Structures are given as C-alpha cells and as structure tokens.
C-alpha cells in the first residue's frame, strides 16, 4: 500500500511535466500578444519593448520554459498580467470557492442518486423504475445553466427567498454565505444526480442478475440486506470511477454554474484569463486543473479495495 502510493505519486511527475510543456507551448503558439493587450493599441513601440523585456518575453523559448518551470517548482506561479495579483494565492482562493459548491453538491447528489439508482434497478421495468428513469433523463437533458436561471427566477426573483447572484465567503458570514451557496449547489445536484443514478442503476442491474444474489435470497435474507449488503458494494465500483471523473472535471471549474451565479470560482478565473491572454494565470490554472484530476483519480483508485477485496494495491 505504502509502496503503491509512492509509486503512483512518482508516476504523476512525468505526467505533470508533459502537461507543463504542452501548456507552455500552447500559450506561445497562439497568435496575439499579451503586451499589446496590457498597454492597449496606443502605446509607442519603446514602451512595448520595455514591458516585453521586463516580462522576459524576449528570451528564447527553452530559456523562458526553464525559467518558468524553476519558478513554479519554488511555488512562484508569477503574477497576473492584468491585475498584478500573485497567481498561486489567487488560484487557491478561487479553488476554495469551486470546491465548496462542487463537494457539497456531489455529496448531496450521491446521497440521493445511489439509492434512487438502486431502487430503479430493483424494480426494473416496473412503474417505479419508469418514473425514476424518466426523471433522470429529464435532469440529464436539461442544461445546467438553464436550471440555474430557472432556480434564480423562482427562488430569487419571484419568491425572493434566496440571493440571486454573487458570493459571500462562509468564513466571513456563515449564514449569508450558506444562503448564497444554496442555488448553485442545487442546480449542480440536479445535473450530477442524473448521471450518477443512471450509472448506479445499470451497475446494479448487472449485479442483481448474478448467482450470489439469488443465493443470498435462497438463504432467506430479506430484500434490504440482499440489496445493501450483497449488491451495493459490487455495484458501486463502476459508479465510483465515474464519480471520480466527474469530480475531477467539476473541481477544475464548474464554469457554467460559476458564470450564471457570478461566483468567483476557478473555472471563471481561467475563462477570464483566456480572454485577457493572461499567460501566467492560464498556465497556472491549467497545471492546477491537471493536478486536481490526477489527485482525484488517485483517491478513487485507493478507495477501490474498500469495495472489492480482489483489488490489491
């Protein structure tokens, strides 16, 4: 286990290096010049040259890359070209916002979706299954931004119960912070629930066909223990892989939801930076996103043996 963990962590290094090279080159290959974005069209050539020199943009690419990599390894992701903020603390702050809504909504979604999927599978092709499956398809097909807008319209505008857009840190004002989280979380829950429950349903249907389930029933067990003790651990493994993938991509930025609710999350940070050609921020965000994905996958792999004793690390 310890050796496995160490090996997996070492294996992430080449991956991250490749990501770093790609991220770096991508930024240099796209047309457009960050300096002219910074100073505008009116600046004279001398000013532009001076800024370019200050930022190190006149150096050869390999030199720029090694310089950049060295800084990153010491925790210096540079400063934003547009705002002058240090990139690392800004990113982490925004990751915190995204992580809050994503983790809360994923927990809620799992609590609802896993039993719902199991129930649908247990009652496969019966009325209950039809209703659950129908709702799930609805949740999957409706785009998250539209759900978000509808929720804002109903609870924010019509009923006036909840704040519509914006963000208050929970550390600053717990009650108001919570109120601001409700709508974004709710719209994410609906979307996540649909896919997770469908995965759970199909995994469960496969498991319920197996002999050990019939054997458990033949022992005289009631349906509750049959489903939770015998079927759930075996049916949940594929769903867990999927949850890992989903979690990785959402933590990297739930862009749509963050935009609809104007949350200062990681996804919007990246999108804004792309529009402004803010190289240090884009590079930092992409690296951070890659790292998050790798870590989430690692966590999922480590969780497998809990469900399936055949998996040995």
């Amino acid at each position, binding site marked *: 286990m310890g*050796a496995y963990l*160490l*090996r997996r962590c070492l294996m992430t290094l080449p991956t991250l290096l490749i990501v770093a090279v790609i991220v770096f080159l991508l930024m240099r290959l796209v047309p457009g010049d960050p300096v002219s974005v910074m100073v505008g069209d009116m600046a004279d050539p001398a000013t532009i040259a001076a800024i370019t020199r200050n930022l190190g943009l006149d150096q050869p690419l390999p030199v720029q890359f090694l310089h950049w990599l060295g800084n990153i390894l010491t925790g210096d992701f540079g400063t934003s070209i547009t705002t002058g903020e240090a990139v690392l603390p800004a990113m982490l702050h925004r990751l915190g916002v995204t992580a809050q809504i994503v983790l809360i909504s994923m927990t809620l979604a799992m609590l609802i979706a896993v039993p719902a999927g199991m129930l649908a599978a247990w009652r*496969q*092709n019966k009325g209950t299954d039809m209703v659950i499956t129908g709702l799930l398809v609805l949740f999957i097909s409706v785009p998250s931004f539209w759900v978000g807008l509808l929720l804002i319209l109903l609870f924010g505008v019509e009923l006036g119960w909840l704040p519509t857009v914006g963000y208050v840190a929970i550390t600053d004002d717990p009650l108001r912070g919570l109120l601001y989280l409700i709508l974004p979380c709710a719209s994410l829950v609906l979307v996540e629930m649909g896919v997770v429950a469908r995965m759970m349903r199909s995994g469960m249907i496969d498991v319920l066909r*197996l*002999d*050990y389930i*019939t*054997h*458990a*029933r*033949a*022992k*005289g*067990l*009631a349906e509750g*223990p049959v489903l939770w*003790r*015998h079927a759930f*651990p*075996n049916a949940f493994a594929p769903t867990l892989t999927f949850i890992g993938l989903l979690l990785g991509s959402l933590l990297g930025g739930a862009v749509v939801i963050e935009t609809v609710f104007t949350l200062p999350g990681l996804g919007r940070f990246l999108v804004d930076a792309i529009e402004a050609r803010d190289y240090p921020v884009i590079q930092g965000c992409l690296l951070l996103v890659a790292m998050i994905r790798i870590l989430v996958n690692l966590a999922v792999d480590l969780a497998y043996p809990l*469900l*399936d*004793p*055949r998996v040995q690390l």
Partner: protein
Amino acid sequence: MTRSLLSIEDLRIGFAGSERLAVKGIDLAMAPGERLGVVGESGSGKTLLARAILGLLPPGAQRRAGRILFDGQDLTDLSPATLRHVRGRRIGMVFQEPMVSLNPALTIGRQLGEGLILHEGLSAAEVRRRSVEMLDAFRMVDAANCLDKYPHEFSGGMRQRIMIASALLLRPALLIADEPTTALDVIVQKQVLDLTLAACRDLGTALLLITHDLGVVADCCERVLVMRHGDPVTQGPVDPVLLRPSDPYTRQLLHSLPRRQGVETAPAAPAPPLLSIKDLRVAYPARRRGLFRRPPARPVLHGIDLSLARGETLALVGESGSGKTTLGRALLGLAPVAGGRVSLDGQDIATLSAPERRALARRVQMVFQDPFSSLDPRWRIARIVGEGLTGVTAAERATRVAAALSDVGLGDGFADRFPHELSGGQRQRVAIARAIIMKPDLIVADEPVSALDVTVQAQILSLLKDLQRRHGFSYLFISHHLGVVEQVADRVMVLYRGHVVEEGARDDLFDRPTHPYTRRLMAAVPEILPDGDGFRAGHRPLPAPVPLPGLTPVEQGGVLTLLQGGHRVRCAAP
C-alpha cells in the same frame, strides 16, 4: 409409501408475454432423505423447476399453474416473509458457478454466518464454531482461517465446497443443487460429490440434483426424472429408468455419450512431423510488488516435447491449471514463450519474419470452447466465416464461404444470419467453418464441445472426424473430458501442472493407464457403460498398477520413460 417431503403437482412455468410454456406440467414427489436427479439438456426447464420451488424464478418467468407442497405446506401460497423462513432454514440451494455464487466483496465467515444469525439468532462465537465445524466436515484445511478470507482466495473446487457447506449449515431438510459440479475438474468433482453425499446422509437431508451429466446422476441418485423441452419424459428409480431405458429420448441420450469407436489408426509412417515442439517453456510475468521489484515469472509449462503427424489427432488432457490451453496458445504465438522450439513443417517459428509468421498463422486455425463469445454478435455469418480470406474476389469469397458452410452441414440460409439467431451447436459449426475455410494444416480445438449438450456434442465430434478424413488436417484437441478424448484421439498426452506425465496411443493409455495421476483421473469419472442390453453405472475398471520403480505420486521432476510402443510415463530420473 412414506410421507413425502416435497411434492410438486402439475407445475407449469411460462415467460411473460408468451403463451408457450417452459415447464409443462411436472409432477414429482420426494421422500425425506431421498436423492432425486433431474436430467435434461439445455432448454429442458430443469433449472426453472429448481428455482420455482423457492420462489426464485428469474425476472420474466411466471408460475402459471401447479402446487409445490413442502412438509404439507403449499409454498406457492406463502407470504414473502413466511417463505423467507423456509428459504435457507428448511431448503438450501447451491448453484453451478462457484466463481459467481459467492459474493466477492464479503468474507467467507460473513457469508456462512448470515443464515445462522438470521434463522437461529446464534451468538458470534457460536456462529463461528458451527461454521468451522461444517468447513471441517468439507475437509477445508485450516477452517478457522478460511472464515476471514475472501472468495477469490480459493480455487473453484474449494469455493463449491464452501458454498455447499454454507447451504448445509442450517441442516435443511432438502438441498437443491443446480449443476453443482459442472464447472469443476473430474477429480475435484468426485471429491465435492462424495463430501456432499456424506454430509447429506449425516444430516438426513434430501438431495434434488439438477444436472446434464447422466454419469453423475447414476452415481449419486436413487431416482431420476428426465426432462425435455419442459416435458417430463420419464421418472423412476435409476435402474431401470436410466440404465435400461424404454423411452426413445433417454435411449438417444445414453447412446450419444462419447465412447471409443472403431480401431485406432495405424501408427503414421515415419514421415517428418507436421508440428514438432521441443522443450517448450512458458512463463507468465508476475505482478510487480513493492516499488520496483518484480518477482520472477510464474512458469506454466516446464519443457514440453511433442510431435504431431499429418492427419493425426493428438489430445491434451488435464485439469484446469495444467497448462493445456497455454500450450495451444503458445503455438499461435499467444503466450509468452520462455524457451524451447516450435516448428511447423520443419520451420522454426521463432526465426520467421513478421509477414512469414502471419502466413504461417493461416495454416494453424483455432476453435474455441464458448460458441457464444467467440463469434462477433454484430457480424453476419458469411462475414465471420470469410474474414480470414484475403486477396480473393467477392465472388470467389462467396463461393468458398458457401462451400465451408455446407462442409459443416449448414445450408445456404445461414450465410445472412447473425450469431444470436443460431443454437449453440450451429454456432460451433460456424466456428469450425471459419477455421476450415483457411485450408489449415492444423486445427487447435480448445474444449470445442464442452459447452454443448450431449446429443449436439456427439454430432460435432463426428463432424470433426469426418472433416479430418476429407481434408486431412491434424487436430490438437484440448479437453478435460476423458470420454470425448477417447472417442476422437489417436494419441493422448496427459498434462499435470505443466509437465507431461504420460503419453501414448489412445488404446494403450486408456487400457493401461500407468501414472498415478492418469489413474486417479480415470477413476474419478462416473460413467455409464454399455452392459449387455442395457447400461451399468460405475467407474472405469483399472488394470492392476504396474510396479515401476521411481513412479512417485507427485512428480515435480523425473523424465519420461518409454514403456512400449510410444507409451511413455514420467518416472524419477534413474
């Protein structure tokens, strides 16, 4: 007659949305402690019958009529809660596949104890004591330790013993066993059956044994019910119903059982062999442990020598894990060869270039065991059969596909169908057509009839023999089934843990088995042998053992020593 324990009256089972019945009016009665065998081919409804008793029919199947009386109580009338009281406690059930009938996510102890806790409310210590006691009765080594392990840590035979132990733990009055030993090797099968019968006798448990294996029924049961397409064909004591059958279907079943036919072919003239294998070693790389350390590869075959003449059938016999399938795969370059030489027609396979090797691969074709997974379900039969033909015109391809299909006894109508529209036997014919269309020199047939019913099996075996006579190719025939091997093979090689322990011409080997392992293998098979007008159940009579110096029960060394006429047996090195 004694009071019956189980009595089924006019049971009819159908599937939702269809008028047709899968079980058409079965009546049966079992006395306490009695052993009844239900035999039939696939689709006979025997499994549905077994599942209906406990109300565990698969989704879609419905009981249409009939009563199931157990201890005077109609099980079909009970509420789910009352029925659960009967399940496990009064009637135990075990299934065929030991690999999927235990839950992989729970420890053995938990699965064994579940029923005891539920039905008898015993304390944890008491549950453990009873579980260990039952596992001991099933000869599990170190039973107390077994309880903390997971199913994947046991072999198939051990799992099946655990499974049956778990069903008998509650001392039920009836045990329903659905093909409990079909997935096991013959020696393990005998051990599991012997243990089960002994345990049932000790507990006074009646046994309802569902199987397709007539030999097992004749060996284990007192009475038998033969089913076909959901109909009861005949019912009564094993002798005479099974052994001196009067109805045509049972007679057909018994006559389809594979047995030796004709005289063996004369030893081939000393021509150069088609296939020659020298000192072949195969080892699978082991899983990496720790940070970088990789343990040494796990050897599967330890130096196999083999030669196969043109037109000859060589059978490889052995239990699972003996390396027989690996040997077949190594010929096709599908296994990691660690040493030795494989040559076809005098050409060393290892020295060939990639294109030469592909050309060679066409001359060696393969037929697999499972006709359901070896054909792509999205392709039509003509495409499956013709895929290997390259560089031919569409017209020629169509002609050759049609010829190959008619060779295997499938008419024109089959070319445009999909695999799922065919029966198991027809699919296996397609797999054979796919092999012979390449005009191969050698066909590696890996358990080609194990998944088929006995009547279909007989047809496929005679087809294989017939094709060989017409086209002259050689077979490397891999099987665990001694009867099948005896019917088709010219020569036989017995493998045990990657070593050849005995080889020889078919008649030599079957009439004078010498190695202790070969003898155990032959003694383990319950058989139905022709006896005058009827049949006789029992085990193959073995000749007295040959006193051979150095013949050790387990051979991890030794060399093959010649007895006579090509019959060799592994002995300790002189």
